[in-house]
């Protein structure tokens, strides 16, 4: 088990805030952390890696990384960390980046093969695309066979297609190495697909912790589906009012109830849901 109980005063853009996180994580599981910017997600990862100090206790399978008496240096923690900016060493080739973490050539080759980077192994890391750099960063983090792998919004800078491909690759690596993984993400979709558990963090505290299905599925009662969206535009078409609403990356047009028309204005957050009709799902290619 991984037991985390940490406290730290933070100075955010909204004023002072206390990070106060208690989590117990089953060994080998994939945990995602969801929360708004400034809620302390990245700080939590940095504290686990030893890159920032905090009060409290971090116990990784019986290895105490910090408590009231000691604070283990990052280099002596068995942790893999994937930074938002990847942090590959620009003066080294891909294979050198991996071997810098651990001189295990067989493991390096295996990782590169799994991520389809074998042919690029001698190129400088700086000439790679974002998706390739991200893969190298993940491989490098796994080179020391860490007890935990920390991913700080690993896929946020990539386009949709690359994200989906890399989600599968990360899952694949997770299954192969069975490394306990903690990932910060903004995407409920990604979290649902990848994680065993999800922690929702608000204002420095864990608001909810459980399996993604219970926590992320918003529909309840007789609602068939329900999405959060934002009103981009409201226009009149004959006698009806039509709202243009952005839901995630999609934009839809929906006819408004005349009672709602007066209450809504551009920029409002709305819930789009339906009860009476079953939504139809059909395959697109």
């Amino acid at each position, binding site marked *: 088990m991984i037991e985390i109980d940490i406290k730290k005063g933070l100075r955010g853009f909204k004023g002072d805030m206390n990070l106060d996180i208690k989590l117990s994580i089953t060994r080998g599981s994939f945990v995602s952390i969801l929360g708004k910017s400034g809620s302390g997600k990245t700080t939590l990862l940095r504290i686990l890696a030893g890159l920032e100090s905090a009060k409290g206790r971090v116990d990784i399978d019986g290895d105490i990384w910090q408590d009231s008496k000691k604070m283990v240096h990052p280099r002596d923690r068995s*942790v893999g960390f994937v930074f938002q900016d990847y*942090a590959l060493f620009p003066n080294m080739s891909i294979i050198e980046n991996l071997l*810098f973490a651990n001189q295990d050539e067989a493991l390096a080759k295996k990782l590169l093969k799994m991520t389809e980077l074998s042919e690029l192994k001698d190129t400088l890391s700086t000439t790679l695309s974002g998706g390739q750099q991200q893969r190298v960063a993940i491989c*490098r983090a796994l080179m*020391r066979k860490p007890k935990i792998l920390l991913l700080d919004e690993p896929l946020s800078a990539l386009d949709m297609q690359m994200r989906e491909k890399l989600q599968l690759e990360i899952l694949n690596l997770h299954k192969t190495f069975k490394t306990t993984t903690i990932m910060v993400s903004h995407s409920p979709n990604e979290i649902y697909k990848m994680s065993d558990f999800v922690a929702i963090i608000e204002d420095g505290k864990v608001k909810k912790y459980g399996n993604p299905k219970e926590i992320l599925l918003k529909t309840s009662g007789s609602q068939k589906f329900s999405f959060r969206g934002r009103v981009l535009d409201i226009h009149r078409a004959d006698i009806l009012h039509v709202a243009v609403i952005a839901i995630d990356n999609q934009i839809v047009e929906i006819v408004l109830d005349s009672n709602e028309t007066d209450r809504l204005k551009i920029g409002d957050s709305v819930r789009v849901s339906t009860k009476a009709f079953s939504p139809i799902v059909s395959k697109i290619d």
Partner: protein
Amino acid sequence: MEFNYEPFLLSFKLASIVSIILFLVALPLAWKLSQSRSKFKPIYEAFSALPIVLPPTVLGFYVLFALSQNSPFGAFIEEFLGIKLVFNFYGLIVASCLYSFPFMLQPLQSGFESLPKSLIEASYLCGKSNFQTLLHVALPNIKSSIMTAVVITFAHTVGEFGVVLMVGGSIPGETKVASIAIYEFVETLDYRSAHIYSAIMVFISFVVLLLVYIFNYKQKKVEFLR
């Protein structure tokens, strides 16, 4: 008139030795300062930058005093190593090291500070020590800062005058460097030699600076292409 190369050779010998010593001394300090979050950091920085703003005569006076037999340090060195530090080449090395110190320290420190913090952290998380991180990650990624620091220190040492004059005097072949030779030519109204020496100094300084700028320009282009 036969052209005397000696002052130039002396200048370059001095500048080379000073650059090597300062590189080795300033490097760990620059690294330490760049990583430091101490509240005393501004004090260290202000102290190390003093030689930039102090008149060379002030520095020269203190160095002269510190190195002479009148000070415990000077007396100690003379007693145990048998070396007199004033009015000879050793004294020049000590004085020049102090005088040119900030010109080595500052470019190195700002080079280290311009590295993304995550690179250094990533190296620690790869299990590397502070020293290994410096050697394998920090240094190879601040090449243009190293080049700037070394060349500016070298050029600055070649160009110094006041401190050298006070600490070294003007002993031919020992402490009479190019800048002092020029001063003496002017004093003795030998304008022809002063012209030749000065022109050579201008030419060499220009070429050195040009090479630095070309190197840094190319380096930046490489970084941009990345």
